[in-house]
């Protein structure tokens, strides 16, 4: 925990204490969808980090002149543009990955974390802290996604980053991959366990 303390609060806070997925239960939809394989989860996380810190910075610059009546629409406009940008770049330079992710990249627009951080932080703070906040929340999202994806890939497919982990001998002896882990309910169960574990470790009592 010592290392965490030396980081700016905007980054350390959303990693564990205020993790967007595990504490605020935001962005669950994509956390269920892209955690079948670790590689996809990592690319998705990088895309979310880019969009989140980018939109936070841009919206923080715009915050003084932004008419409050069209606030949400302008936020969505900025976020959607960044997401389309990510999608286009993936399609040009990482064709294989974009083929596997394409549907889900588009769905970053609807990821509550992005709009949530814009509303809750970027509109009230200057660009540099807003950037750190976006980065921190993106990393918090990454942490949970990678843990869940790694477990799902090992248990559900017997591989990690596409490399076989369970030896063929085990399959010959009757070991079977856990089909449940490949399906969305597997992610739900793991995510629930993750949140339970985190709350226990942080000493949070059950809420009333």
């Amino acid at each position, binding site marked *: 925990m010592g290392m965490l303390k030396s980081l700016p609060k905007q980054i350390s806070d959303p990693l564990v204490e205020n993790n967007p997925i595990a504490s605020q239960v935001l962005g669950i939809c994509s956390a269920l969808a892209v955690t079948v394989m670790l590689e996809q989860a990592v690319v998705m996380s990088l895309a979310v980090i880019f969009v989140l810190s980018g939109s936070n910075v841009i919206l923080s610059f715009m915050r003084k002149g932004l008419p409050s009546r069209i606030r949400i629409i302008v936020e969505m*406009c900025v976020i959607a543009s960044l997401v389309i940008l990510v999608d286009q770049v993936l399609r040009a330079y990482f064709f294989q990955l974009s083929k*596997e992710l394409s549907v889900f990249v588009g769905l970053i627009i609807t990821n509550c974390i992005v709009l949530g951080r814009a509303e809750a932080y970027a509109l009230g703070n200057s660009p540099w802290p807003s950037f750190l906040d976006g980065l921190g929340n993106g990393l918090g999202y990454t942490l949970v996604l990678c843990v869940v994806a790694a477990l799902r890939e090992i248990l559900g497919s017997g591989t990690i980053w596409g490399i076989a982990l369970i030896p063929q001998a085990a399959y010959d002896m009757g070991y079977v991959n856990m089909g449940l882990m490949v399906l969305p309910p597997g992610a739900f169960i793991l995510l629930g366990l993750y949140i339970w574990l985190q709350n226990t470790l942080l000493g949070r009592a059950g809420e009333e």
Partner: protein
Amino acid sequence: MNDNTYTLFYAAIVCFICSFMLSLFAVGLQPAQQKAAKLDLYRNILNVFELKKEDGSEMIDSEVESTFQASIKEIVIDRNGKVIEGQAFSDIPQNEKCELLYTKFPSNPEDCKLSVYSKVTDGVASAYAIPLEGKGLWSTLYGYLALEGDGSTIMGITFYKHAETPGLGAEISKKWFSDNFKGKKLLDNTGSLASVKVYKGKAKDSGLPEDHVVDGISGATITADGVTDLLKHCATVFDPFLSKIRKAGA
């Protein structure tokens, strides 16, 4: 300036900047995207014909292009299987090409055009790849089916474009799934079209003849059924052309 005018003005500026930036990037990245899509298609076709480098390593982009040009030939045919010489498929106007999808296929014009790829070894066509197209669960699946010179034995199958669920339906583009198709046959012993069925479960439990069934994907029954349907449909569409090859070979 009153409040409403300012808001409208602000919205207009945001829209303008966003759309300008996006169109700039879309146009700027288009050549790279088209090249990536073309190379991906080439890679898939080389794969389905099992054209690999001798040491088994991955081909780099320029090698993909040169190998493709050296050993793959496009053949344009009409829907009755007649070969049309001297025309590249990409030069044919869109409305003269057949719509391959089974819902659209019956409404095609009588003389619509199709294309197949052939693998050329020492100047002779030794294998053929026919395009596949059909519905999965979420999306249309696009792929190629490679057949040996007998027009019936399957060399390989590949799906290069789809939007099925990663980890489930998307397994159709994985090696384990396509490997199951190797050596299966489109024709049965009597020479009539039997196609290949993706069975829900293990193929050996299906009770179907071994040459016409492969293992299914658990959790992806609808995608798998889609593959069964599109194989049957596309094998029927290309049957006139394939029969000619079978006759020539016999």
